[in-house]
């Protein structure tokens, strides 16, 4: 099948999705979690439903800045507050015990404002090391910088898709960018490359045996690997979907990020990384003719 003749369509689809994401990022930015900006998340289980408005007021009276109080079902509430030190936590507990003496603390997470910038830096370092290592590995395995660069571009594509999706989810559903998200993003990078390598490997194998233009090789490899890419992606999506739906609130968005990354990664291998090789070849040929 002549997959590569539709490459403009693939690039348009990717372009539109990434544009939507970028627009959302420009308009709404991200919903940054406490890991990166500091703050407190406290979850309590009360004996009776509480009034979130009253509670907010009571906390304000104690000089605690409240971002939100949400019910998580079954008389449990998540308080999102400013970063609290030990003394601040005392004030919070006073309020909580004042409302319900038997309130149970399910979790308490407080991150000081100085920690966030550090985590951002560490995440960026991890990202650079991973991406750099992968680029080198592919360049070495395929003896070609073209393959390496195209694979990394596809990786960038998937990163942008996931980031854009989370800007949109953040605006509409409150999905947060936290440290778990950063790890999911890193994992997506390796997924993306995982799939790309499978297709590239096919191109390499046929090139050795039969030779031919990149265009034909790309078509052949895409045809041959499409079923496996799809089937493999489905099994991973099954597992992640189960986690998103049944896995509980603290891990839902983590699994969601992985799932979007998996789908985008599967798409980007035959429809971004491979067509890029063709584009690259065309440009190269044009220059040679001149």
């Amino acid at each position: 099948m002549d997959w590569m003749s539709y490459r403009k369509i693939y690039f348009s689809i990717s372009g539109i999705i990434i544009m939507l994401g970028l627009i959302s990022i420009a308009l709404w930015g991200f919903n940054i979690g406490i890991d990166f900006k500091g703050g407190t998340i406290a979850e309590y289980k009360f004996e009776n439903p509480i009034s979130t408005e009253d509670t907010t007021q009571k906390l304000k009276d104690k000089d605690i800045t409240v971002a939100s109080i949400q019910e998580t079902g079954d008389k449990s509430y998540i308080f999102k507050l400013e970063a609290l030190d030990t003394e601040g936590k005392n004030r919070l507990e006073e309020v909580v015990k004042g409302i319900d003496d038997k309130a149970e603390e399910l979790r308490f997470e407080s991150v000081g404002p100085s920690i966030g910038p550090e985590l951002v830096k560490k995440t960026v370092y991890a990202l650079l090391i991973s991406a750099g290592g992968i680029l080198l590995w592919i360049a070495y395995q395929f003896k070609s910088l073209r393959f390496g660069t195209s694979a990394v571009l596809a990786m960038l594509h998937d990163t942008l898709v996931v980031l854009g999706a989370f800007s949109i989810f953040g605006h509409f559903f409150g999905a947060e960018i936290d440290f778990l998200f950063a790890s999911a993003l890193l994992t997506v990078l390796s997924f993306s490359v995982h799939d790309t390598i499978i297709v590239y490997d096919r191109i390499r194998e046929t090139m050795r045996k039969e030779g031919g233009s990149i265009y034909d090789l790309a078509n052949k490899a895409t045809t041959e690997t499409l079923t496996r890419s799809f089937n493999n992606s489905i099994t991973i999506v099954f597992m992640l979907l189960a986690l998103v739906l049944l896995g509980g609130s603290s891990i839902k968005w983590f699994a969601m990020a992985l799932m979007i990354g998996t789908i985008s990664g599967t798409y980007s291998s035959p429809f971004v990384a491979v067509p890029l090789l063709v584009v690259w070849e065309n440009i190269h040929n044009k220059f040679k003719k001149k």
Partner: protein
Amino acid sequence: MNKPLRKLLVILVLVVLAGIVAMPKEIPLKFNVGSIHVDRTVTRPDLNITFAGKEIKKSFDLVLGLDLAGGSHLEFEADTSGISDDKKATAIQGVRNVMEQRVNLYGVSEPNIQTSSFEGKDYIIVELPGIKDTKEAVNLIGQTAQLVFAEVGSEEEPGIKNTDLTGADVKSADVTFDSTNGKPAVSIEFTDDGAKKFEDITGRNIGKPLPILLDGYPVSSPQVGGKISGGKAQITGNFTLDEAKQLAIQISAGALPVPVKLVQERTVGATLGSESVQKSVRAGFVGLAMVLLFMILVYGRLGIVSAVALVVFGILTLALYKLIPVVLTLPGIAGFLLSVGMAVDSNILIFERFKEERIKRNTRDALEVAFGRAWDSIRDANVATLLTAFVLANPLDLSFLNSSGPIRGFAITLALGIVISLFTGIVVSRNLLRVFIK
């Protein structure tokens, strides 16, 4: 007996052994077959043997992280501004040791205390499994606890003057009860040096108060009745029993060389933890069932082989988690489930290849060729994932990368999953196919 069959037997033995390790502590069995009623509990045997005079003991329980079992993760930043660079490392190590001693005296089982530094800032991370009252823990661990005995100045020089008798001169401290009013108090015993100092100080302050300061605040101010020799003293105050216990621990463990500040706290109650475990396990089973069903529907007989390989994968992985042991966190479970999804990848690659090759040659040859050809891409692709897992797990503890527990848990389970899936995807399913597909 042919070779693949023998290999399968070896694998079978391995799986049975791993299965014993992987199974839960107790499985209640209750069923009826016709007139036979079974109602008993199967208990997992733990390793407990004596070999050459050495006792080898290992219980095969999953080690759960703080977010699953409940517990507290505290991160303190050390204020090293007043310390020269060459003494910094010693000071931080000192903080760590004192904290460790305080935690141990407090009686927390299996605490984890480590230091980390990033761009000139120093942190001490304290992980306390199963602690509910973090407030008390933070107060206990994070206080500098510099104990000083002071003198009240004379009329010409009023005010409080610190003496050279400090917490460093204390040999031990313990909770006791004041004989006059029965209130909790802290008894201290000085070192020989300290005893001498104490004798001098009490000698020249007869009839005057002797304030005892903790981090600059007076905790007690007993009146000196006479010169005290023998090196024993008692701190009384308005203590509750817990406060007295804390103070005793802080004094015995010594003062922190530098002040610290709590910058991060993550506490998860046991209720939420066990809820997470239940939910993840359920999600895992549903996902697994869907994957198995999909493989069998799409690949038929081959799919059954990969389903068997996947079950083997699950058993081996669980057994390894227990043997290493891997501290399982919530993201760690996600990493495991993810690797289940990925474990069938090598099977799918091989099966697809097998379908192509079967057109060109006979089944047996096609199978071998498919395995051979698919291996190249499986290897190259998995190296990339392992690379990322390596960066996330940060096994070398590089200070410019993350070293937080949950993420590390995710990376480790993901990496283990990939390695084991290579074994089950290639070795196990290959031999199964050699024996059963003709």
